[in-house]
């Protein structure tokens, strides 16, 4: 059997240009985690249901496990690591999760945070039902979602109060 053909995949990840040569079948979440070593993006099911691998592709949340890295070369990607403020303090959604006990084991959390970050850009003043709807494509086994919804509402409050968020 022949060695696999490699493709150069170049991404701008969290503002930094990064690249690696990988086979065409490398899944984007694996590429970020193992080739670029950004392990904040998690993989919970590899079939697109759990949402733990959600990242922002050109600002829009997508499932990292349902995209081939080679297919998005040249794109800008934001992961949960990239939502930290430039001074290292927590971004608004991250802070809201901390303040609202929106996580327990933390495994699903990066996918929620990226999803909610994008959601609040579009709808900065959600109702609780809209918040529930917004997170309804992500699975969490620990929290029962109640405090995640609370976190969405808290993040909206923080945005309103003018708390710093670099992203």
């Amino acid at each position, binding site marked *: 059997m022949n060695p696999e053909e490699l493709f150069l995949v170049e991404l701008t990840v969290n503002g930094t240009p990064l690249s690696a040569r990988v086979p065409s*079948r490398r*899944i984007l979440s694996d590429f970020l985690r193992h080739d670029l070593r950004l392990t904040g993006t998690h993989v919970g099911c*590899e079939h*697109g249901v759990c949402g733990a691998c959600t990242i922002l592709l050109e600002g829009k949340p997508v499932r990292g496990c*349902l995209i081939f890295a080679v297919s998005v070369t040249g794109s800008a990607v934001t992961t949960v690591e990239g939502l930290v403020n430039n001074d290292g303090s927590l971004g608004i959604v991250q802070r809201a999760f901390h303040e609202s006990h929106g996580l327990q084991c933390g495994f699903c959390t990066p996918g929620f945070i990226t999803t909610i970050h994008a959601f609040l850009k579009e709808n900065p003043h959600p109702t609780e039902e809209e918040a529930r709807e917004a997170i309804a*494509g992500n699975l969490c086994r620990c929290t029962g979602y109640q405090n995640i919804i609370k976190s969405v509402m808290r993040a909206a409050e923080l945005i309103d109060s003018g708390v710093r968020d670099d992203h």
Partner: protein
Amino acid sequence: MKPSRFQYVRPRSISEAVVALQRHNSKVLAGGQSLTPLLSMRLAAPEVLVDINGLTELSGIELRGPDLWIGAIARHQEVLTHHLVKTHVPMIAQALAYVAHPVIRNRGTSVGSIAHADPAGELTAVAALLEARIHVSDHQGTREILAADFFVGPLESSLQHGELVTGVSFPVLDNTWGSSCQEVARRHGDYALAGVCALVQVLDHQMVSAKIAIFSVGGTPLVIDVMGVHGDPEQLNLKVQAQIEPDTDIHATADYRRQLVKTLVVRALTEARVHAESRRP
């Protein structure tokens, strides 16, 4: 759960794409939201994957004559929120609201969903009900397939080896028409246990046309003209039940699916009528 090897082709034009699709055991990669899990589970192992995500000429959503054209790589979310869709073929947006979750809709394509011919696909029902036309290219030329001829079986279309769906055109319906998409799923965003789309025309507060498409019940979307019986729930149900052949699976019995269809048909027709009335200026 990792895909097996494939040769990756990223064509720069439709003509390059259809040439690449001539290769043995090739498969189109558009949004990949249905295909990638199949690849990761190794249920599908195409030798060649033709990635059309770079074909920006296929990303359009536009009016073309009497039709609304949706290109092969227009994402569900773009379609769902597009003003032309909302204005001219609102049923598409009504159906897309049920398709998975926003994050999936950001990447998945509406045309890909039709090409996938999933019996639970909301858009297959919309395409069938609106008599949409599927535009196909291969290395020899192009052709159009009527939705009624396109869906052949569960996950199977009349698409031939080497063919690429470039877009789907939906006839634009004026504001005398109303539509609705209704379904019941176990969880929010899941494949429906049963679903019904309804399309009605109302003139002078009189229903003059009423058709439904049933999905997730049987292998292909089933279109039924219910004009005449639409006002009589009993006759309506008799007519519909005679034509469906639901299966029992781990989530629902066949009879429960029949019950859902009975309920959803009425719900969809009622809502479609309300929708038609609401669209009038």
